[in-house]
């Protein structure tokens, strides 16, 4: 209708050669996204003569999410099952090379300490007699003690709604307080569609127009994932505007850049907290595509 839907897969070349890795190296809390640059097919703007004017104003919103950094804690049943499986696997397993070596060394030591020990009978093992397997284990234990893992849950950062490090085990969504009509509302960052651009470009513009600079995101696909229709109250309706339609696009946070000013009207919320900030009908539309996994 009004918004041109370009070839959905035209940007695919750039999307494809992207590699997501989940390692601890690099920015804590962000997936490493590497995408090789391939020449994008330039989108020709089609000029449609005599396009029918629709009575709906179109807007595009971006649902920016930060994925969980660590896996969630196991429920009590999962913990019990895990313990039982570990015990079963331990009982069914065979001895590894290192454990066999431990046993051989212990046996050799006991033979050496016996009175009638003849060193010529023993095989020539060389290095293994100098560095016993037990010594290796001790050195490994020392190294493990000097390793300090960072705490999984920090109560302070969890309370701070604007911090990106909160709730590492859940996925967070960006909410912005924007001017809609007369009043300010908390909603997913949105902006109005303009002629000659695709809806996805509108969503990218919505992300770039936020006061938090440096939020780099990777959009997943050209197709919107949800839509919200809002009819204006009868008093505000005219012939040209009956209401607004908001199309949502999913994006994944790849880099956060410098932290935003504390007064910026942005916050990162979990799915369960979204209800506190969003209006009920909007929440119902958004709920459909936000995955609570």
């Amino acid at each position, binding site marked *: 209708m009004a918004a041109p839907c370009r*070839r*959905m*897969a*035209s940007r*695919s070349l750039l999307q*494809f*050669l*992207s*590699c*997501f*890795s*989940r*390692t601890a190296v690099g920015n804590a809390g962000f*997936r490493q996204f590497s995408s090789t640059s391939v020449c994008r097919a330039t989108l020709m703007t089609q000029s449609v003569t005599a396009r029918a004017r629709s009575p709906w104003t179109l807007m595009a919103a971006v649902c920016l999410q930060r*994925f*969980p950094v*660590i*896996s969630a804690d196991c429920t009590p049943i999962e913990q019990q099952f895990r313990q039982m499986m570990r015990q079963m696997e331990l009982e069914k397993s065979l001895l590894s090379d290192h454990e066999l070596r431990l046993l051989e060394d212990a046996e050799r030591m006991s033979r050496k300490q016996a009175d009638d020990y003849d060193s010529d009978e023993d095989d020539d093992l060389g290095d293994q007699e100098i560095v016993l397997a037990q010594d290796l284990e001790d050195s490994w234990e020392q190294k493990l003690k000097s390793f300090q893992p960072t705490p999984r849950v920090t109560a302070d950062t969890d309370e701070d709604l604007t911090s990106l490090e909160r709730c590492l085990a859940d*996925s967070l969504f960006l909410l912005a307080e924007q001017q809609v009509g007369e009043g300010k509302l908390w909603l997913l960052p949105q902006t109005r569609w303009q002629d000659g651009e695709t809806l996805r470009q509108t969503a990218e513009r919505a992300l770039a127009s936020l006061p938090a600079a440096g939020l780099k995101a990777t959009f*997943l*696909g*050209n*197709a919107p*994932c949800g839509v919200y229709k809002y009819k204006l109250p009868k008093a505000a309706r005219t012939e040209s505007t009956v209401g607004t339609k908001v199309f949502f*696009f*999913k994006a*994944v946070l790849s880099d956060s850049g410098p932290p935003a000013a504390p007064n910026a009207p942005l916050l990162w919320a979990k799915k369960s907290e979204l209800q506190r900030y969003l209006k009920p009908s909007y929440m119902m539309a958004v709920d459909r*595509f936000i*995955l609570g*996994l």
Partner: protein
Amino acid sequence: MNTVFRKLQVSVTQQAFVLNQALTSCRATPSIQHPVWTAVNERQYKTMPTHGIGRWRHLLPREAPKKKKDRHQMKEILAETDTAYGTLNVKVSGYDMTLVEHYSQYIHNLCNRLGIKVAESYALPTKTTEVMLMQEQGTKMFVDAVLKTHSRVVQLSSLNATACPVFIDVLLKNQPEGVQLSVQEHTEADFHARFKGRPELEGLMAQMGN
């Protein structure tokens, strides 16, 4: 009720008809001592009305017999269209084999559930990395650890552009720690990289070319 009665009546009349026919045939040939029995083969139940009721293989289209060379032919690499991506390789790699295998099985099952066609699902050879550390006293390097990188590939034949964001979202949300995920287009080079090289053949071909 009426239909039941009607059926009974029909069957009764049919049975009467059959009996009449049997009687007439018997009466027609009283003298012949059933030579038909010896001529017919042992399977007398061919006259049963339900004979051959379970046969289905003759209904299938004729398949050409498979030759051994066909197993290594490459499947068609689909090109992308306006609404669907072409052949994609979802590659999962990591050090922990149980995690990598379980995650690739999860991806395969997810594709089956979402209706995304999976062309192939295979494993690439394991790459072994030896981590060498310098000794504290001395200049010799010694082997500290041996790390093995396992990788599995799930090849999707066509991914709808509307299903793509949902699919990738679910994949990324469930990615375990220590496992790398990468989505790439499938190329011929990828296919040929799976086979072992044949140095003698290549040598002979080079000689022939020269």
